[in-house]
């Protein structure tokens, strides 16, 4: 029998215990990866490729404050701006579903392709959307969720605006970072609201990344001290401003996660060291046969390390497969659209598992080292 098979045989001797140990390590690491991924997603939302050239202009008071429609020609004249579209959050309820449904935005349909270049949609669907003022387009995920197909009628009841709007579904797009939103003609919205002369935000596309800072400064300065001051910022900065709104709950959830992981590690470590403690007599026999302390330590370490790594493989691998190939938005009820298991997170999890394997072997090793052969042989337990 080689030393390798000796360790392996020892590890698998009590199959039930080995399975339980491996599973509890797997569960802890699965949870660790899930929490790390979710926290990363909250603090660092996914970035769209096209976002690098998009600027968001909102009211300086807050995002809920409207802007006068007459700002549009002024923004269009700012050098470096390629396209400008009003962008108004409609916030309607669909099919009486309370809570989170999907985002609905009124915008200038002719600018959709320029501003959201990353979206993919068949040409004829896009043309149909442009022609029909009551048409709308919807992201693939939402279309799937509600089993919508081209030609369906969609009715939205406004919660912010006192109107009910009816739409014809003209197209289904995909390929953006968040294929859930619905877009429709701002003209239709204006008509329904009796031309209130206000828009929610302005979204624009700049010609090149070099123009970006200049465009942002010019827009901010142009409307400074006017009756409707604005805040222009990159789409990324706009997105990140939401993460600040989460408040100290973010920190708090982070702290909870640490406790969770610590707990599970404690539990798995105790499970693993239990199996060593039960073998006290055997280890004393090995000692009597002439094995040194450090060799015994190596046996114990190798065994618990192997169990921890096997658990890590199942836990981390399971999380990776689930979040990479599973439908994240369905699993989380739309709270997350993507959960990316980055190499850094995998690295962290594996490191934790390695630490766990080592930590679990230290306590039993110390007591094995301390016990004399005679005492060890006497142990009944």
């Amino acid at each position: 029998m080689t030393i390798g098979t000796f360790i392996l045989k020892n590890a698998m001797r009590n199959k039930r215990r080995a399975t339980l140990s491996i599973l509890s390590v797997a569960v802890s690491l699965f949870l660790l990866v899930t929490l790390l991924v979710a926290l990363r997603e909250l603090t660092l939302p996914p970035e769209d490729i096209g976002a690098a050239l998009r600027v968001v202009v909102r009211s300086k008071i807050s995002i809920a404050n409207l802007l006068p429609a007459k700002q549009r020609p002024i923004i269009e004249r700012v050098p470096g701006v390629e396209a400008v579209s009003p962008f108004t959050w409609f916030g309607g309820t669909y099919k009486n579903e309370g809570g989170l449904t999907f985002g609905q935005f009124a915008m200038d349909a002719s600018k959709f392709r320029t501003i959201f270049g990353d979206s993919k949609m068949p040409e004829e669907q896009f043309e149909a959307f442009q022609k029909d003022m009551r048409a709308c387009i919807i992201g693939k995920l939402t279309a799937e969720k509600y089993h919508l197909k081209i030609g369906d009628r969609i009715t939205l009841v406004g919660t912010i605006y006192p109107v009910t709007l009816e739409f014809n579904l003209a197209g289904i797009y995909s390929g953006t970072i968040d294929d859930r939103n619905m877009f429709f003609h701002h003209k239709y919205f204006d008509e329904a609201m009796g031309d209130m002369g206000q828009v929610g935000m302005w979204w624009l596309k700049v010609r090149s990344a070099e123009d970006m800072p200049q465009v942002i400064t010019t827009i901010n300065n142009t409307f400074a001290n006017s009756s409707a001051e604005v805040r222009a910022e990159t789409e990324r900065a706009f997105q990140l401003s939401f993460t600040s709104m989460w408040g100290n709950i973010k920190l708090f959830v982070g702290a909870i996660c640490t406790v969770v992981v610590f707990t599970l590690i404690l539990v798995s470590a105790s499970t693993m060291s239990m199996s060593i403690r039960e073998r006290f007599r055997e280890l004393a026999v090995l000692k009597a046969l002439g094995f040194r302390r450090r060799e015994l330590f190596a046996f114990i370490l190798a065994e618990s390390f192997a169990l921890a790594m096997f658990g890590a493989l199942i836990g981390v691998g399971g999380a990776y497969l689930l979040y990479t190939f599973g439908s994240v938005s369905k699993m989380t009820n739309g709270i997350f659209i993507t959960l990316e298991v980055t190499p850094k997170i995998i690295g962290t999890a594996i490191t934790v598992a390695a630490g766990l394997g080592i930590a679990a072997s230290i306590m039993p090793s110390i007591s094995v080292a301390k016990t004399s052969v005679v005492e060890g042989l006497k142990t009944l337990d």
Partner: protein
Amino acid sequence: MALPITYNIRNVFVRWRATVATIAGIALVVAVYMIMQTMAEGLEKSSQNTGDPRNIMIVRKGSTAESSSQVTRAQLKEFNYLPQIARDAKGQPLLSADVVVLVSLPRRDGSGEANVLVRGVSPVGMDLRPQVSLVEGRWFTPGKREVVVSRRLSPRFANFEIGGKFRTGGKELTVVGILDGSSSAFDSEVWMDADESRSIFDRENYSSVLVRAKDDAAGKEFVKRIESDKRLPLLALSEVEYYAAQTKTAMPIKFLGNFLAMAMSVGAIFAAMNTMYASVGSRTREIGTLRVLGYRRRSILISFLLEGAFLSLVGGVIGCLLALPLPLLGYSIGTLNFETWGETVFQFRMTPMLAVKGLAFSVIVGVLGSLLPSIRAARLPVIAALKSL
């Protein structure tokens, strides 16, 4: 014939090293579960604390929150002198037409901006909300661009102290007082004069109207009256009902709490199982002896189940105690409110019901974890058990 309970309790402490680790694990699982639940409870309580049963709130039909509702001045004229509304000593109706504006302001620690709900109230607005009191400074004087901020918001936003000034809507506002909302939703608000707010933020309409009904019957009649008036696209409901419905924000916290509890309890069950298997293994002879003495399989099963339940109950008690300091110290926490899109501040809140839930949760973990080991113990053949070392 059942085994004496002390037998089980004393057995729990025989293998103390494994037992301590298992108890600690279960304690932490229960603590995390309890902390998440006290958080959700505190959030829900803050909206339950807000309404006054005598008050009726009027918002636009179809709007889900005050901040997205509108009541025009013409609409207000339709109902502000209805006989069901109570009046003050001077004969004026007890009615406050409020303007709710979301304002984005920098945080005190410089970590970015967040939205704050600024409520413009009419002069009687404070009388209608007796839970709000001034704790420092004075109330605002209309026309002087003054505001009163909540005690809970004050440490969270820049310049939210008496004498502090901040800019919004192109105007500079001065903080002249600190209010306390006694753990209601008003703890997350800044108050100023309604008409001044309308002029600063360029609002033609009010957001909502709060009235005090003369009595219960008058209140019901008032709600019916608004409902039946087809010219008014408004919804009247009791203030209590309105705030009770604002529970969306607590949902993700509950979701996360339940998810963590589920996932962690799986780990805890494995741990309890291992401890109990070991416990059964080391007592094989003892079990054989008990069987010889005439104890039945059933008694042995129940005895080990009790042992597992007791083990995790100890963990549960410790877990509940671990979760206590946060609610006791009145630590407050703030996050984005999904209804108003403003910052909402609330406190952790422990109730006896939650403690019972936490303990029940721990016992379930214990029983599930010790079920298989107990069955094994009960099934041990007597002779083999006695022969084992």
